Structures are given as structure tokens and as C-alpha cells.
């Protein structure tokens, strides 16, 4: 026992010394390199005026606003696109998930096709496709069922007076459709985890397929679906950083611009990490709440 | 005759103050077969698992195959004991990713550093002894429960142990498969293997056991020969138990 404890201690000391010395070495090199470039680590530049305009900003912003404010706008833009594509992805994902477990064979084949096509091609390519081919190549208004309510053009989507830019729209559609493919698999797995006996039971009671799905199967499948759903939402948040490829000003794109303009690579990168951490925390805490709510609801 | 297992006032308390082992003192001599009986939760599994260090204990003395084990659970002694004591579990616990032959030769090759050919030859002879030599290249999932348990016995024997421990070896089997496993254990007894068997099989106990140890609530209630225990148990609790299992 004693020998074992000492050996454990020995290994731990070795590993942590190694770890700490590597970190110390990197920090030393970093400071030498910053010295060489005539830079120290500081954050006062955050309050200088940014000098660049933004196409989209949820709060008042002008080029004379500070870098900090610009970054905050980027963060809000990220939040905006994440939350809205999250809704779309959930909606489509659940529908496709239901279709892939449903009775209509054609629908099942189609949803399978959709999932393989989306999951076997890179998201970045899909986003660029939606933007440059999907939205920008629309000539005139191709889709305008109700004048002024919903229209689709290369100026984006107009939805009952709210104008969504093509950058935002393509990100919304691209992220939504991509994540939905993964969510549908999570939903399918959850539904399949409910024992077949439960289906037979509600059918034998004469419930319709829809009633059975909503009242019997889903309540049992949800606890199995939620963890997978959470990780897909977190993936969506991380994937939203690909916005830079379609010219949407999210936190990463603005961070990139700020780093270029100020040359403050390390500080800018740290701020980026911090903002991702915040986004992650928000999503996982909300999902935790939802999880609790569903569990208590189920118990009642 | 030398003793293979000797315990004195062995005590183990679970976190909630429940005593799994309550001052257990007992002895198993060489070539003896001890059958441990008792209602579920009586501590018999805990007892047998302390014999090869799978459970620790809080106080008392324990000596297995001549090696002392204390409450500090000395790692080196535990490993030495495990090399010389075989164990067969209720759920077989074969390694599903290894073939039958690999299951049996793993410990001889890795622990006793035998060479592969020698270990495989020994394994094949054990398998033929268990009557399942044709299954050597298969994987556990392809075998029936009874066959799997016989592989588990062969695996335990491969280390040439001085003591074999059986923790309810037939409880997880289909009724029609119980016989083949008990037969295998019986033939081991005939060859003079020292064994401790936790089981509910009364017929088996009557026939094979040298001694029967009855436990309840972590205490040894009585130790008798099977003749006495099954016909004329000394204790009220023993009689009640025998009644319940329909004997």
C-alpha cells in the first residue's frame, strides 16, 4: 500500500513537472517573441475606436465605437444566428426523425437520403453553396406567396417586415439543415430505444399512430434524446464560427478583423476563447434546465 | 493436515454500518471441500471474495495458502494469493473479445510467464477434461451457459491453483445445464482439489462437501458435516432456511 502510494506520487510529480516546464517554456518563448515584436500583453486597446463598419448589429454601433463594443456585437450576432438556426434545426430534425421511423416507406427512403447526403459532405462547402449558389444566384424575387409577408431574393429573406440578410439567411439555412440531419439521427435512436412492446400496446388499445407517438412513445424517448440533443446544440454553436466563409460578422469573424487591425493576437485569441466558453455555458445550462423540467414533468 | 484457509474474527462493515462479516473464524484444510450456504445477503459472497482479495476487511486475521493478509490489503501479498487461488463467478465473466483458448492462456502467459505452446497444450488438456475441446477456437458468445461456466473453471485451473473458489457457479444457468457444471466440480473434488463452494444445490452439497458452513447476517451460525446439517441441524435458523429452500 505504502509502496503503491509512493509510486503513484512519483508518477504524478514527474508528469506535472513535465507539464509545468513545457508551459513555462512556452510562456518564456512567448514573452521573448513579444519583446522582439515590441509588444507586451495588455487590453487597453479594447477601448480605442474600432474604425470599421458592420453590416449587422443588434444594438447601435458606428465605426467610432470601441473594439470591445464591436466584439460584443459579434458575440450578439453569434447568439442570434445560433439561437435561430437551433430552432430550425430542431424543427426539421424532429420531423425527419419521425419520418424515418414512420410507416410511409417513401418518406423513410427520402429521409435516409437526406441524412447521408448532408452528413457525407463538409459543412463549410454546404455553407458556401447556400450563400454563393443558393442565395446570391437568385434573379429577382422567386418566391413571394404573400406580398410583403414572405419573400425570397438575393437580398435575403423578408419575413413579415423583418429583413434577414443573405449572409444570415444562408448561415441559418446551412447550419439548420446540417444540424437537423444529426438531430434526426438522435431522435431516431431515441424512438428506437423505446421497446417495441410499447408500440404494440398502444396499437392494441386502438390509439392512432400520431396519438401513440406523442402520448406514449415520445415521453419515453425524450430522456434518451436530450443528451444527444445537447451535444448537437453545442456542435451547432461551435460550427457557427464558419460564418466567416459567407461574410457574416460573427464573433470569430470580428475577432479576426480586430486581431489584424490591432496586432493583438494573443489577447484577441484569449477573448475569443472566453466568449466561446460563455456561449457553451449558456447552452448547457439551458439544456440542464430543460432536462430537469422534463424529468419533473414526467414524474407528475 | 495443513490448513489452506484460516480466519480469525474477520470483520467487514459497510458504510451504512451494516456488518457483512461479523467476527468470522473458520478453517479449511487441504483437500477439503467446504460448501457455504445461507440466505441472500447473509455475507457468503463477501466472505468468499475476501479469500482472494476482491473485498477488503476492517479487522481480524486471514491466512490463505500460507500467506497472511491484513486489513491494510498489502498489494504484493494479494497478487501472490491470486496467482495461487482460482475463482469461478456466478456470471462466468469470460472475456468476450478473446477466444476460449485465449481466455484460458491469458493468465498463464502474462502472469506466470509460461511460453505460449506450453500454455496452449495445458489449456487443451483442461478443455478435454471439461469435455469442450471442440470449442477451443470459438468465442464465449457462441457457447451455451453451461459450456461457458466450464470454460471459466478451466480458466481458473490453468494457473494450477492450490485452492478453488466458486461463487454460486450454477445460479445463472438454465436448469437443464446445471448438471454438467456440477459434474465438472465433482470430478475436481474426486481428484483432491481444495475448494470453497457457495451454492444452493443441496444434492450437490450432500454428495461432495466435507463440511457445510451456514451463514446468516454476516455470522457463522453453524459448521457441520453434511449428514448432520441436512438431517439434524443444530440451529433453529439453519432449520428454517432448509425449510424455505424445500429441503
Amino acid at each position: 500500500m505504502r509502496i503503491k502510494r509512493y509510486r503513484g506520487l512519483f508518477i504524478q510529480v514527474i508528469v506535472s513537472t513535465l507539464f509545468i516546464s513545457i508551459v513555462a517554456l512556452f510562456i518564456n518563448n512567448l514573452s521573448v517573441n513579444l519583446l522582439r515584436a515590441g509588444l507586451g500583453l495588455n487590453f487597453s486597446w479594447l477601448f480605442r475606436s474600432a474604425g470599421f463598419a458592420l453590416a449587422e448589429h443588434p444594438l447601435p454601433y458606428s465605426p467610432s465605437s470601441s473594439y470591445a463594443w464591436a466584439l460584443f456585437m459579434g458575440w450578439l450576432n453569434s447568439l442570434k444566428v445560433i439561437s435561430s438556426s437551433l430552432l430550425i434545426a430542431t424543427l426539421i430534425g424532429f420531423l425527419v426523425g419521425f419520418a424515418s421511423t414512420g410507416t410511409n416507406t417513401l418518406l423513410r427512403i427520402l429521409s435516409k437520403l437526406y441524412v447521408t447526403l448532408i452528413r457525407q459532405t463538409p459543412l463549410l462547402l454546404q455553407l458556401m453553396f447556400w450563400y454563393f449558389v443558393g442565395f446570391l444566384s437568385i434573379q429577382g424575387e422567386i418566391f413571394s406567396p404573400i406580398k410583403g409577408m414572405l419573400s425570397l431574393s438575393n437580398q435575403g429573406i423578408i419575413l413579415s417586415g423583418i429583413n434577414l440578410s443573405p449572409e444570415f439567411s444562408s448561415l441559418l439555412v446551412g447550419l439548420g439543415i446540417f444540424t437537423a440531419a444529426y438531430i434526426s439521427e438522435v431522435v431516431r435512436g431515441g424512438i428506437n430505444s423505446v421497446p417495441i412492446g410499447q408500440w404494440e400496446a398502444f396499437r392494441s388499445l386502438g390509439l392512432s399512430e400520431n396519438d401513440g407517438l406523442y402520448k406514449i412513445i415520445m415521453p419515453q424517448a425524450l430522456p434518451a434524446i436530450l443528451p444527444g440533443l445537447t451535444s448537437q446544440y453545442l456542435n451547432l454553436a461551435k460550427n457557427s464560427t464558419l460564418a466567416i466563409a459567407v461574410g457574416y460578422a460573427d464573433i470569430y469573424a470580428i475577432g479576426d478583423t480586430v486581431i489584424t487591425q490591432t496586432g493583438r493576437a494573443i489577447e484577441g485569441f484569449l477573448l475569443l476563447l472566453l466568449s466561446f466558453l460563455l456561449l457553451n455555458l449558456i447552452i448547457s445550462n439551458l439544456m440542464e434546465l430543460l432536462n430537469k423540467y422534463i424529468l419533473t414533468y414526467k414524474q407528475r | 493436515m495443513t490448513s489452506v484457509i484460516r480466519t480469525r474474527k474477520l470483520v467487514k462493515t459497510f458504510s451504512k454500518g451494516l456488518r457483512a462479516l461479523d467476527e468470522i473464524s473458520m478453517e479449511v484444510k487441504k483437500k477439503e471441500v467446504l460448501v457455504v450456504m445461507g440466505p441472500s445477503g447473509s455475507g457468503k459472497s463477501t466472505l468468499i471474495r475476501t479469500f482472494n482479495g476482491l473485498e477488503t476487511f476492517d479487522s481480524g486475521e486471514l491466512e490463505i495458502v500460507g500467506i497472511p493478509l491484513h486489513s491494510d490489503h498489502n498489494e504484493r501479498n494479494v497478487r501472490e494469493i491470486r496467482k495461487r487461488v482460482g475463482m469461478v463467478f456466478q456470471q462466468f465473466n469470460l472475456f468476450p473479445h478473446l477466444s476460449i483458448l485465449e481466455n484460458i492462456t491469458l493468465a498463464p502467459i502474462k502472469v506466470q510467464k509460461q511460453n505460449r505452446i506450453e500454455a496452449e497444450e495445458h489449456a487443451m488438456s483442461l478443455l478435454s477434461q471439461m469435455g469442450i475441446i471442440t470449442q477451443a477456437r470459438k468465442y464465449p458468445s457462441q457457447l451455451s451457459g453451461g459450456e461457458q461456466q466450464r470454460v471459466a473453471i478451466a480458466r481458473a485451473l490453468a494457473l494450477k491453483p492450490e485452492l478453488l473458489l466458486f461463487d454460486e457457479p450454477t445460479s445463472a444457468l438454465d436448469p437443464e445445464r446445471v448438471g454438467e457444471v456440477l459434474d465438472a466440480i465433482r470430478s475436481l473434488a474426486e481428484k483432491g482439489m481444495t475448494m470453497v463452494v457457495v451454492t444452493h444445490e443441496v444434492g450437490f452439497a450432500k454428495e461432495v462437501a466435507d463440511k457445510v458452513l451456514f451463514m446468516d447476517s454476516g455470522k457463522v451460525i453453524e459448521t457441520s458435516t453434511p449428514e448432520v446439517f441436512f438431517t439434524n441441524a443444530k440451529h433453529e435458523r439453519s432449520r428454517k432456511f432448509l425449510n424455505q429452500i424445500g429441503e
Partner: protein
Amino acid sequence: MNKKHNLFPYIRRIAFSNSLDTCITLFILLAVFLLSTITIKWLLFGADWAVVIQNYPLYAFGLFPADQRWRPALWLLLLISLTIITLVGPRWRWLRKLLPITWIGVIPLGIVLLSGGLGLLPVASRYWGGVTLTIFLTTCSSLLAFPLGIILAIGRQSDLPLIKFFSSIYIEALRAVPLIAILFFGQLLIPLFFPIGVEINRVIRAVLAFTLFVSAYVAEDIRGGFQSIPKSQEEAAKALGLSKLQITQFVILPQALIIALPALTNQAIGLLQNTSLMAILGLVELLGISRSILANPLFIGRYMEVYVWLAGIYWLICTVMALLASHLEQKVTIEKLTIKN
């Protein structure tokens, strides 16, 4: 004859069982018909495929010198034939035994064939590109991330608190950050952490960044495998006198890997797709080289053709990988891991 007789009720049962289903089916059939006619019309008559046809070598090999292109070609060909052999599943035992070693050997072979040496003309990594680079990044990173992930997973399960702490921190931190941030770090910030004069090749830096990122995910997948192995397996191994290291090596890890296999192959497919992110950071892998081609005045505006072509290539490679993976899974699981008890 009999079959034809049964066809109509069969179709009715699968597609027209009630009025809602009938509506849905008809709608889908119409939509699929319209969409496919438009697509086929565009593919055959609308598209100008010059941007693809004139640049085949660029898509395949990037800027690799023309007279040396046989090297990446040979490597890719080898990978393809190895894939086919594995998929078919050869009957000969010796060939089957050789397969895993060959798969591992593909990496050093690829490095030698691409970078030169051993009598081959050296080719600097800046000339690597296209599909070759995409495949190279994927194979190297996944091969490196695999053992690192195993070590991290074991570290996270460790009894030693400091080891457990470091492993957990590493895994959680890398999983919280988007890949592009890590790649950005790898391409532009890593040089700040090394003394001047020490220069790490860009491709290697990309491989390292991908490895660091993927290993955290691999570790989590393997940990999931660890957790689904019953405690009794460890006990049985203990009872046989195996040491802690031996138990992990011979009993726990092999089972965990088999359980984690589907998740791990998904990681590999995800990695291949994620190599496209290097296009944003200036490596000319498949997507990157395509963006460069699109900047050529001759081909400006041919987005649709290029994207469709790229989607086709990525889809094909990923599908082959998925097939390979499911084949492997079936082979391993059917034989071994259906624990009945």
C-alpha cells in the same frame, strides 16, 4: 408472374395506406420528379464543366510537380486497392493477417512518397494539395489522435488525482472550443511559442492541431467504451492475478475499442470533412485549391460547377469510409461482442 400479382397491394400498403399518406406520397413524387429534371437538365446542358476538366491534376495533387505526380497517384491508388481488398474480405488467412500492418504502413509510405528522400526527388510540403493533402491530413491526424486519445481516456479514469485532473481539463477545454479557433492557433499563433529559427512545417502544424482537437473527442468515445464494460470483467481479471496495467491492456481496452468503434469511425469521417476548414487558413487542400481555381480570371463565377463537383468527391470518399467502417464493425461485433449472459 406471382410477384407482379402482389405488387399493387404491396405498393398500396407502403405508400397509400391512408389519405394523409397518399397526399404525402404524391407530393413527394411530384417534388422529386421536378427536382431531378431540373438537376439533370443543368448537369447535361446548363453547366460548363471546363473548370473541372481543365484542372483535374490540381484537384487531385495540388501543385505537385507534373513529372512527380505518379508518387501521390501511386499512394492514392494503394489506398484505394487496400480499401477494396479489405471490403471484399480476402479468403486467405495470411493476407487477412497482413491487412492491419499494411494499413499502418500506409502512413510512412505516404510521407516518403510525398516528401521524397530514399532516392526520390524531395518535394516540399507547399506543393502538396488537392485530394492528396486532404487524405494525408486525415490519415496522419487520425493515426496520431488514436493513441493520444487512448492515453487521455486512461488518464481520465486514473486513480491518481493530478493525472485525472490534467486529462479532464485537456479534454473539456478542447471540446469547448471550435475547431477553427484551434486551427487558427496552430497556423498563426504557434510560432510565437517557439524560439525564432525553430520552424515547424505548416502541414505538420495542421496535422498537430487536428490531432490535438480530435484526440479529445476520441478520448471521450473510448471513455464511453470503458464505462459500458461491466465491473465484473475487471474482477475476473483481478482474480486471475493480472496486474492493473495488464488488466487495462488485455481485458478492458480491447473491449472498449470494439464498443467505441462506430463512434471512432464517425470521428474519422468528421475529420476528413473538417480538413476543409484549412481552406480558410490558407492550405490548398481540396476546398482550398478549388477556391484558388475560382480566382483564375478564366473560371470566375463557376461556383455551382465546382461546388457540385466537390460535394461529389467528398460524398464519395466519406461513403467509402463509412462502408469500410460498417464492414469492420460487423466483422468484429458479430464474432465477439454479443455477450449473452
